[in-house]
């Protein structure tokens, strides 16, 4: 325990919302002094002080000066900031955890749709609080590039508490750790708290996947955890692209592989263009490796958040290349990504016709499926079935679409 040293954690100042800033000095005598400045003091002043006192007492700190500037932080964040400050001064293995929200105990399946995943900077709680209501398939609490290097320490506490205490309303709860090996340290903050999927950035070798899985196993054994944790490596370099197949097949829990074009084009020494010719090989390679490995291929993000038409064109191109999903950096992108990745009315109608023709042929015992004068190959039927399956899973058409269509006729 370091005495008479002042440390500070968190954010304050103009434009900072739903956040807090704590400065802490452990002293020798005199008890606990908390100076609270809060925009919600009238409504929550007492409960904030109570929580701060509870955390100090949990870490057995009896004498301290605490300056607390609050812009409407929720309890999970207050606890994260306070604990991060304390651990700069106190060596301890203890963690101060608020009770896990019961609704956060869900698991996700390997095959679930991953059309959209929304990036959330790991140290910015104001963007996390409402992320789930925009209904992306997944949210990514980002510990890597969206967090400034000097904020990475405190962000890991925020991400841990967000996994436990924020409701993301059924989204797949993902975390992007830092690049391995540094990212291995991040696992302690997320694996025991029911993270559904981990993104491994700048992945270049299968070895990195093995290292992550080894650490996950260690932590799971220590905490006796049984939940599956899926992995999504992100390929962001020329070397990574060349090792795509090895990475995609590195482990059974690799469910998807993504490409990060900003770093990839930099590594290539090429300029990132709207036409994306420079990354065509890489994108195709990723899709090909993913298909060969039987996992999902996920595209990079589209960075102009104001250009919805540009985004749409980008998603359609991505879909045409064979990708299954895309990253979003703003909630408004989610709807466009979903609408463009999911089958449209024309595709669904065509798929229905093909599936119907296939079923009729089977009922009649015919070996050959034909639609009008055209013969239909088995892979075409398979693709049509997949389209229908997706349309049903998204509620675009009913499970009993065939009966309903017949009724209409």
């Amino acid at each position, binding site marked *: 325990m370091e005495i008479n040293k002042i440390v500070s954690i968190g954010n304050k100042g103009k434009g900072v*919302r*739903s956040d807090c800033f704590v400065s802490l000095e452990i002293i020798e005598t005199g008890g606990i002094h908390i100076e609270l400045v809060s*925009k*919600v*003091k*009238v*409504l*929550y*002043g*007492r*409960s904030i002080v109570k929580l701060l006192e509870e955390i100090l007492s949990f870490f057995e700190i009896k004498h301290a000066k605490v300056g607390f500037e609050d*812009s*409407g*932080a*929720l*309890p999970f964040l207050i606890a994260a900031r306070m604990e991060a400050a304390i651990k700069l001064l106190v060596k301890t293995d203890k963690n101060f955890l608020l009770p896990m929200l019961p609704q956060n105990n869900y698991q996700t399946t390997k095959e679930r749709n991953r059309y959209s995943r929304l990036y959330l900077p790991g140290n910015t709680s*104001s963007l996390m*609080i*409402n992320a789930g*209501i*925009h209904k992306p398939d997944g949210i990514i609490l980002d510990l890597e590039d969206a967090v400034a290097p000097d904020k990475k320490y405190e962000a890991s506490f925020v991400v841990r508490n967000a996994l436990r205490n924020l*409701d993301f309303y059924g989204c797949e709860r993902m975390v992007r750790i830092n690049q391995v090996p540094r990212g291995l340290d991040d696992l302690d903050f997320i694996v025991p708290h029911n993270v559904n999927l981990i993104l491994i950035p700048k992945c270049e070798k299968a070895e990195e996947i093995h290292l992550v899985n080894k650490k996950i196993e260690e932590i799971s054994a220590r905490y006796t955890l049984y939940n599956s944790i899926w992995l999504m490596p992100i390929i962001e370099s020329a070397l990574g692209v060349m090792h795509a197949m090895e990475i995609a097949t590195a482990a059974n829990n690799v469910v998807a592989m993504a490409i990060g074009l900003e770093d990839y084009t930099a590594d290539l020494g090429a300029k990132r263009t709207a036409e994306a010719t420079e990354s065509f090989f890489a994108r195709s390679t990723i899709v090909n490796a993913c298909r060969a490995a039987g996992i999902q291929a996920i595209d990079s993000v589209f960075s102009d958040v104001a250009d919805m038409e540009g985004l749409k064109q980008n998603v359609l191109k991505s879909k045409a290349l064979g990708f299954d999903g895309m990253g979003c950096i*703003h*909630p*408004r992108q989610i709807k466009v990504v979903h609408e463009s990745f999911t089958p449209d009315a024309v595709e669904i109608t065509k798929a229905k016709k093909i599936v119907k023709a296939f079923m009729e042929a089977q009922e009649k015992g015919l070996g050959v499926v034909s639609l009008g004068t055209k013969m239909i190959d088995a892979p075409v039927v398979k693709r049509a079935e997949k389209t229908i399956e997706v349309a049903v899973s998204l509620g675009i058409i009913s499970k009993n679409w065939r009966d309903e269509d017949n009724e209409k006729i």
Partner: protein
Amino acid sequence: MKTMKKYDKLVKNALGRIVPTEINGKEAVEYLGIGKYKPTGRKYAPPIVSCADYPADGNKTLPTLKEALIRAGLKDGMTISTHHHFRNGDLIAEQIFDIAHELGVKDLMWFPSASFECHSPLVKYLEDGTIHHIEGSMNGSLGRFTSDGKMTGLGVLRSHGGRYQAVQDGDVHIDIAVIAAPTADAFGNATGDRGPAACGLLGFALADSQYADKVVVVTDNIVPFPCIPWQIHGNNVDYVVVMDKIGIPEKIVSGTTEITKSPDRLLLAEMSAQFCDEAGIIHDGFSFQAGAGGTALSIGVYFADILRERGMKARFARGGSNKYLVNMLEEGLTEYILDGQTFDLEGVRSMRENPNHINTSPFTSYNYHGKGNFASMVDVAILGATEVDVNFNANVVTHSDGVLLHGIGGWQNCLFSKCTILPIPLFRDRIPVVIDEVTTICGPGELIDVIVTERGIAINPLRTDLIEKMKNSTLPIKTIQELKAEAEAICGVPEKIAFEDEIVAVVKWVDGTVIDSVRKIKK
């Protein structure tokens, strides 16, 4: 006036709120319920005057505002009215009280149609006794001053319609009305739709021009008679003063009114529009109230998309006009704009050029003591609120810490629409918006039909028709209690705000009765 009690005779009104029935020495009636209070008697009237006392050549100009105020008989205890057409760019109100202070006049009542942050300098005149109290709205620093219990008299908050009613019924007698006009002639005819300080319309000054003892028009753009259109009639005007500058244009119409970029607010707008669509509110020939806030603005844009897609149009849109509404008018998606306040330069241009862009006043749109008003004919009104409670009562004037912060505007009046929807976040930076009991009731729950939050939509149980229509909706329909519980689960249960017993202001209902009291903040 100084020895007069701020208020007296407390009673419990129909909503169970404790309110005074004597305010600044005048009798007042407690809120009795919607449509229950029906005063008798005749309307108020200004004194009879004669043309013999006015220049036959129509030239009523005086060199300075000071001279006009002196000629108008400015003295202790008078009521001086101004208007908020220039919003935060008003340069006139402060000058009036600078002059009053210079002349040593005391105990004035300021009767603005609304106050803005630019009026903060008036705090010094509230402190030194030049101004006794404010009846209108107390925003920003003025609200803080009032909530701290520092105002000599009791503050009175009224809606735009309530202000017209109060003047018409004689609840408020205006001694001198000062009307800042972007363009005027020497006779006093005035318009807001042109000139360097163009603001669109001057509807909030209509009552004042009709009922005040003395009317002063102040302009920085004098034109030869006739000033057309004559939104304000020179026949009601005593003096005209020409100045270099009456308002700061960029603060009057920002020209930057944009739809919100906040994804959370856009979601609220999208959900609200979808609700209206599924509830069958959007149909050919429907009408809507479009607010000026980012969320309300976006809902208008969604309405436009729906109308365009279906080849339908609205009969009229009630504004707050801005470029988005003007686009709808020009695209033929609405036949009329009935405009109460113009928010950007496109709105001003449209009002000047388009005969279907109509300038309205609180008389046509909101006055509750008239033979009807069109607020109740609007199919849907989208409004805001700082708090809503489990009885659907809503607050727009006090902040979560209990401090007076906003005026009522036309909010109370718009509640009479066929469907009133409040799109509000469930909480703002940990401050729950859906709560047990609002700090100040500005609108009774029975007039508030739907609360749209990002985490669920609550329909007022009185609206069984809407509940029935939304039975199979994919929207997250919940009860208001469920919403409140959800807010508390996320933010925690808030502590009760501590107030002093002392009342510092009252909120009037549209019929002039007292719906609630605002109490002094406890230090």
